[in-house]
């Protein structure tokens, strides 16, 4: 439902769309130029899963920019220090791809998201670009220190996964890929059994003899919040006192979240250790 100005709530759906123009770019450059023709009201279309929800908020499509023919953004590639996942990779393809083995736990973590049916359609790029706190790729990717690559009319630019929600630069931008740095041999553990109340991703990075744990926490209604701690730290509970007191939602109070982080973290550290 959306709120029409001056009147009230109206329940729309895909049936409220006018017939739109459709373009099928084959290159990033073409896609970007379509996405910047603002008069044509362009909408990038990947899996279309989140858009089905967006029409219910009265999203309109002037020109549908069909992304699936852009080969450049469909692949998964691994180099020595980087795992690159193309924007069009679906949850299903991604979590089943052996190349992801370079980040231990990533296949398993990603494979828990959504459900089998949705995983055939939903893409990583759409998950990120939907900018919804209830979606989980931002949590996993923030914990992994991932960089998100974009192309816009001025060229290419990159954002950290946890910067995405705060930038105006996304208008007219095409999300091309996600880079997960392999430095420090990241290993991830994702705890989502309390979803939608709460989820927590923990990534262990090796740094010489030391290792560092990067934690992303989130609730259905709140964007990820990040902590980094040395793994060896004996008594890390007080670190989480730095969680802002307003990090809470209608279902979970701040005290419980603060309490929960180390409880889950201890389990995650154990599981990560076992994974080695």
């Amino acid at each position, binding site marked *: 439902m959306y709120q029409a100005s001056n009147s009230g709530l109206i329940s729309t*759906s895909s049936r409220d769309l*006018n017939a*739109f123009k*459709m373009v099928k770019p084959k290159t990033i450059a073409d896609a970007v130029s379509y996405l910047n023709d603002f008069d044509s009201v362009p909408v990038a279309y990947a899996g*279309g899963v989140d858009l*089905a929800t967006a029409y219910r908020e009265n999203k309109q499509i002037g020109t*549908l920019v069909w992304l699936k023919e852009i080969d450049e953004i469909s692949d998964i590639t691994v180099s020595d220090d980087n795992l690159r996942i193309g924007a069009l990779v679906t949850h299903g393809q991604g979590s089943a791809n052996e190349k992801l083995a370079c980040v231990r736990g990533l296949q398993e973590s990603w494979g828990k998201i959504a*459900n089998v*049916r949705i995983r055939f*359609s939903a893409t990583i790029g759409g998950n990120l670009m939907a900018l919804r706190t209830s979606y989980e790729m931002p949590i996993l990717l923030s914990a992994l220190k991932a960089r998100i690559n974009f192309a816009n009319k001025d060229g290419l630019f990159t954002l950290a996964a946890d910067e995405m929600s705060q930038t105006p630069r996304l208008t007219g931008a095409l999300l091309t890929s996600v880079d997960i740095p392999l430095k420090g041999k990241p290993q991830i553990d994702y705890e989502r059994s309390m979803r939608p109340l709460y989820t927590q991703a923990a990534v262990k990075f090796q740094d010489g003899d030391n290792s560092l744990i990067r934690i992303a926490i989130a609730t259905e209604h709140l964007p990820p919040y990040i902590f980094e701690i040395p793994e060896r730290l004996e008594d890390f509970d007080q670190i989480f006192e730095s969680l802002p007191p307003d990090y809470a939602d209608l279902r979970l109070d701040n005290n419980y979240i603060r309490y929960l982080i180390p409880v889950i973290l201890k389990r995650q550290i154990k599981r990560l250790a076992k994974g080695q």
Partner: protein
Amino acid sequence: MKNTTTLSFILNSKEYESIEVPTCVTLGDLLREEFGLRGTNLSCNQGVCGSCTVIIDGNPIAACHTFAFEIDGKNIRTIEGLECADGSLDPVQESFAELSAFQCGYCTPGMIMLSRALLDQNPNPSEELIKEWISSNICRCTGYAMIIEAVQLAAKKIKESEA
């Protein structure tokens, strides 16, 4: 620039060519309104409940969040396409009927298509895998246990028929 597209596809084993469709029509509406295939039930219209699940190139997809233009060049199966030409039921349909793995029936065509896709991709699914797949769709009536049993029975029936 016209706002329609021209499509060719296979629907329930029948080839269609040069079908002109407005761009904004969803697959769900195309199937129901243009092809009269009313077995594909629409409910949430946002991909959540899975009542409108059909099989596109072997994968289970909700017809409500898929535009008609997306099926160009593809092979689509709906609940109406499961029955054999002689009118006999598909083993999955047969199993759902035999074990009463349905109640109000609204989710049933979607559940059956989801199960059929599962069995096409994994002829020997474990109970865990069945649960994982079935967790894609909502059934508000049965409590799922009987559906899981029906999928197990269907797997057995398919194996028997192939043996």
